[in-house]
């Protein structure tokens, strides 16, 4: 049974991890709780839904591009001007809530509030006993984790991102184009979230609120793991998924969220900097 729990954890946790890592990456250069990242997930899924009749599985390409562009546009047209006018993280959070609501309403207007599934739910290709789409989510999560770690530590751009994360003001003073760096991060984040949205759309379907629900879990995972650390976001997501699955197994299915949130609050209380993060250390 433990093996089965671990497999279930890996499947669910990988989805959370993708969102948690994207959230953490974006937060590192633009430190506020950006709720429109949820809109970007939904934009990816619904774009795939729109293109899937003509492009089939290749709908993932335009969906990813649209999600990346949306993420960039939000940053360039909404948050940057607000930051330039001295908006605080609280103002940006409220603005992102407003923008999230606008995007959710637009999706509802175009596609309706009903539930859609990408692909045929009755047909599920499997590999090693795991549905292909879930396997892809796991692979994407590990690839994103490895790829982002490598990118942040071994490329010039990655080092610039880390510098902005450490001190945006200092980075700006020494001549780094911080706005450009934030835009690049927004595009990377948008692309990852877009693909995630498409894969989730294939796995469990989509509805206009899908992004918020996922982002919520992703944020919790990132906080549990440690906001200053990509590894923390990844492991935090797996930890959250494991807790949820253990709660279902030991208690009952309806205890799932209750147990997960008790753990979350406990961590905030006892270890606010996260499980995998030492106080004040960035990585």
């Amino acid at each position, binding site marked *: 049974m433990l093996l*089965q729990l671990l497999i279930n954890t890996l499947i*669910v946790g990988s989805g959370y991890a993708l969102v948690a890592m994207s959230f953490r990456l974006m937060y590192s250069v633009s430190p506020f709780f950006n709720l429109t990242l949820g809109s970007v997930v939904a934009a990816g899924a619904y774009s795939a839904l729109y293109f899937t009749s003509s492009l089939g599985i290749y709908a993932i390409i335009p969906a990813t591009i649209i999600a990346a562009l949306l993420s960039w546009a939000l940053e360039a047209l909404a948050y940057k001007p607000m930051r330039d006018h001295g908006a605080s993280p609280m103002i940006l959070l409220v603005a992102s809530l407003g923008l999230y609501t606008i995007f959710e309403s637009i999706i509802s207007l175009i596609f309706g*509030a*009903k*539930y859609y599934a990408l692909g045929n*739910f*009755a047909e599920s290709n499997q590999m090693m006993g795991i549905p292909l789409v879930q396997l892809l989510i796991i692979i994407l999560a590990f690839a994103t984790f490895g790829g982002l770690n490598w990118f942040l530590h071994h490329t010039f751009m990655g080092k610039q991102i880390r510098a902005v994360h450490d001190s945006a003001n200092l980075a700006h003073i020494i001549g780094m184009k911080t706005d450009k760096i934030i835009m690049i991060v927004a595009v990377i984040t948008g692309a990852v979230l877009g693909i995630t949205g498409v894969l989730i759309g294939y796995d469990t379907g989509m509805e206009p609120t899908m992004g918020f*629900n996922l982002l919520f879990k992703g944020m919790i995972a990132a906080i549990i793991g440690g906001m200053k650390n990509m590894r923390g976001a990844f492991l935090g997501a797996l930890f959250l998924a494991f807790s949820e*699955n253990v709660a279902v197994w030991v208690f*009952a299915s309806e205890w799932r969220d209750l147990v997960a949130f008790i753990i979350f609050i406990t961590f905030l209380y006892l270890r606010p900097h996260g499980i995998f993060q030492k106080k004040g250390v960035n990585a």
Partner: protein
Amino acid sequence: MKKILIALAVVAAVGFGIWKLQFPKVEATSDKPTIKIGAILPLKGDYEAVGEIAKETLLMFQDNLKKRNLKNNYEFIIEPTDVIDMKSVVNAARKVILVDNADAVISYWNNPGIIVSEVTKGKDILHINLGSDMTVVKTGNNFNFAPSPVEQTRRSLEYMSKNGVSKLAILSCNNQWCADIKDMYVKQAPNFNVEVTGVESVNIGTKDFSTTIEKLQRTSPELYTLVLETPEYEIARKKMLEKGIKTPVTTVEMNEYTEQLDMFEGSWYVCNPEGDKTFLNRYKEFSGLTITTNAAYIYDIASLMVDAFENANNETNATEVLKKMKTFKGVTGEAKQSDNFFVTRDVVKKVINNERVLIEE
């Protein structure tokens, strides 16, 4: 400022025009008193198709009324809502009752019924809900009209017993209707020598069913009953198929609402009757729709309301007329009233064959 006002006026005019086109009011034509009946229907969201059936049924009912010599005129005000979004139901109920001044209200399913019963509290407005929640009928002017969960699960267990099923696992969700059905299964199963091997309830919005299904699978049931709503119903079934679970599944009503019948191929379930043949032929001819989910129930609710208002007089209002009505013979069969709850006893068994629903018994 002037431009903004003009733009707002144009938007309001266009919105009103669209609304009028979508939901035409069927106006009274003579000087007889007009009874306004508001219908709060799920015309948005996951259950839009079901709401469309109800809307067509009411328009057909309105059309049928023209042939009858009645003492009142009847005007139906159809308000679209999303049954998942309770805010939209509250707004629709307030609009129909407080703005349109409806004399009576029809609501669809339990939660909207509870909301409407709260809004009608203290007002002389007749309300009939297509649902079975007892909270709705707490106050005098509210009625339920539905098959009882007791009867639905009794018939379901009867079929299980007949087919030699002795071990049942229940996967349900945390809403009132699902909880009622689940409880009735658990309570009545011993009467049919069916052992409930496992019961799991998930929260609304659950997407990950892996461990829940694993847990139920380990109880070795011979049949699963899925008492869930869309989309949890489809996601749970998908996860069962992905796990390679070959054990058959059944449900109460839910296959009437899913758009993914292919996942439930070969399974049987119990649900509400479709109505008599005359009704069905007229409905299909009028609406052009082939799916009939709950059309007969909406028709009977509208008939009940009209009967109540037609038989009301200065001494007895419509609510009192209904309270005194112990039985009602409609297109769904005979319904018996007890404590403001009209219960229909007919339950049909259906099977899914080649992605089509067939009535078996």
